[in-house]
């Protein structure tokens, strides 16, 4: 499996009233061909900004990509002309957003929204585009597609709109789809439908996916590899199985422990991560998670840990105590 997308030291800043915020602070990660990779973290951790930076959709003047490279099929997207980037956006790399209603045009018919991209990117006739649009709707499980093409977004339910977004994303046979919280706004049973659909289509069409989410359950079921982000940095990465079975960053561990699970006996009390997420305008020199960390040592406050390998298989963690974490976990587990 070759590397499709390689993000190197990507740094994106925003100017806010409180000061300059590094929303993505030197992050590096990659996606292989046909692979599903997750970026997990809470609001403000930089996961969405990472995706927007890849698409060069960070809005100036407040937002700016200040460093790094985004290699897609070997070409640095950050060095492309605007025109060349337009050829990639929507065609080779497509995006699916959380709230489909705000990303669909309310005054254009479903058919027109689908055919527009096809005509522009693929240079096909309106008639061919119309036919392909019908096929796409059928592919994402929207029945009666001929009639549906003439309808407008408000006539679609939330689940149908997200199917429509997936159809739009797939329209030009992209090799990568960036999905930003694709099911967060949907009901549980519809969420399951959409995720199964995305998984099935990505396998069948061999499309790679980057799923951005805060939901650890979604990640467990659908991702091959996982990057955990906190305060603009990646703090841990590994295969989904390795990361869940053997978390080596206190933040990952905290996230996994704080959620109640249906497959486990009910606990008398939940184990939250104490404290609040940090103010990104006031990050110190140390590890950003240290003030909330149960495992912190003196070094954590003054020196920021870098990602280092843990065992094998590409598992990395940015924690000074990573090597001791499994023993510490065993101890605290025995204590509670």
């Amino acid at each position, binding site marked *: 499996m070759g590397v499709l997308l390689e993000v190197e030291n990507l740094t994106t800043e925003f100017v806010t009233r409180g000061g300059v915020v590094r929303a993505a602070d030197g992050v590096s990660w990659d996606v292989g061909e046909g692979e599903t990779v997750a970026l997990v973290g809470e609001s403000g951790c930089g996961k969405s900004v990472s995706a927007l930076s890849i698409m060069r959709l960070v809005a100036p003047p407040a937002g700016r990509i200040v460093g790094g490279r985004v290699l897609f099929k070997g070409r640095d997207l950050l060095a492309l002309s605007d025109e060349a980037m337009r050829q990639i956006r929507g065609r080779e790399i497509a995006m699916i957003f959380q709230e489909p209603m705000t990303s669909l045009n309310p005054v254009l018919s479903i058919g027109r929204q689908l055919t527009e991209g096809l005509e522009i990117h693929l240079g096909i006739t309106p008639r061919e585009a119309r036919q392909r649009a019908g096929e796409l709707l059928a592919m994402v499980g929207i029945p009666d597609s001929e009639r549906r093409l003439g309808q407008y977004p408000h006539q679609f339910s939330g689940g149908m709109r997200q199917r429509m977004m997936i159809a739009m994303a797939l329209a030009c046979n992209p090799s990568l789809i960036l999905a930003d919280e694709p099911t967060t706004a949907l009901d*549980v*049973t519809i969420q399951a439908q959409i995720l199964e659909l995305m998984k099935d289509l990505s396998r069948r069409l061999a499309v790679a996916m980057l799923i951005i989410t805060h939901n650890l359950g*979604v*990640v*467990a079921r659908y991702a091959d590899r996982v990057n955990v982000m906190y305060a603009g940095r990646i703090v841990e990465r590994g295969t989904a199985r390795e990361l869940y079975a053997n978390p080596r960053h206190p933040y990952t561990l905290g996230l996994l422990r704080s959620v109640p699970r249906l*497959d486990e006996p009910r606990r008398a009390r*939940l184990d*939250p991560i104490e404290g*609040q997420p940090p103010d990104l305008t006031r990050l110190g020199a140390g590890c950003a998670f240290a003030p909330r960390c149960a495992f912190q040592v003196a070094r954590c406050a003054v020196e920021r840990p870098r990602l280092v390998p843990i065992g094998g298989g590409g598992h990395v963690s940015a924690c000074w105590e990573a090597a001791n974490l499994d023993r510490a976990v065993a101890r605290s587990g025995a204590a509670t």
Partner: protein
Amino acid sequence: MNHDAPLLEVRNLVKHFHVGGGLFGGRAGVVRAVDDVSFSIRRGETLGLVGESGCGKTTTGRCILQLERATRGKIVFEGRDLTTLGEDELRPVRRKMQVIFQDPYSSLNPRMTVGQIIAEPLAVHGIVPDPAQRAARVRELLGHVGLLPQHARRYPHQLSGGQRQRVGIARALAVEPALIICDEPVSALDVSIQAQIINLLEDLQAQFGLTYLFVAHDLSVVRHISDRVAVMYLGKIVEITDRKSLYDAPLHPYTKALLSAVPIPDPALEAQRERVVLGGEVPSALNPPSGCVFHPRCPIAVDRCRGEVPELREIRPGHRAACILA
């Protein structure tokens, strides 16, 4: 007061909304948001009310609070039927019932400080008329919800999401309510903060003997916090029982599908798990299906389900479900 009687009893609650037929035309219709719902909550208990958007769970809560007047049915709170009371008689009752909303940002006045927000109900209800005593009470309430005295001078936008929800909880606690309706209180919060707020709600319940109606769509959270759970679908309760029976031995096919749709944060387990993925979508409450409202999506429906409205009947002791096949 009789402490064995339930604190709240909802009997055959019906709430219809009339839509369309107005200025801009459109066909007039009736949305059956809540369609013959009955349950009770004992003092100190937490009843979880789960279901997907549009199932009527929030409307049920609003009818209890008398923010919506019921079309039919009774809301018996501390022995009195609230649906028969006028505004003046309701005012003292409203103190006893409070609500915590999903999004504390839109339910807190952005121009008021945290201190003013929490003090307002104390002044309005005349609970603590003296300003100095009121300030002391605000400090005490901030302490109960894990905030510091200096937070009283801040504005909502200066707080994090979790801190804002703590302010919402302090405001609800201020009037010393008996019942708190928690309407998706953690679903807008980050994962690491959700657990903090759930623990806080449990601590406060133990400390002040609170009774909760916990309205949510997250089944894992509902399992953690509830003593009993009711599952709603399209305006009706389809299953109601104690927590253990509902999660260990669900009877209604909708409950089973909901439970199966929740992804479990363990890739090894997920890989082997069989999933019941429901087809279709929740039908419109304007035009609900005949018979059992769930039959068009039900994986085990038979012909009878199309014509017969299933009764919510006791299938095992204390475990009721509305399914003819259960």
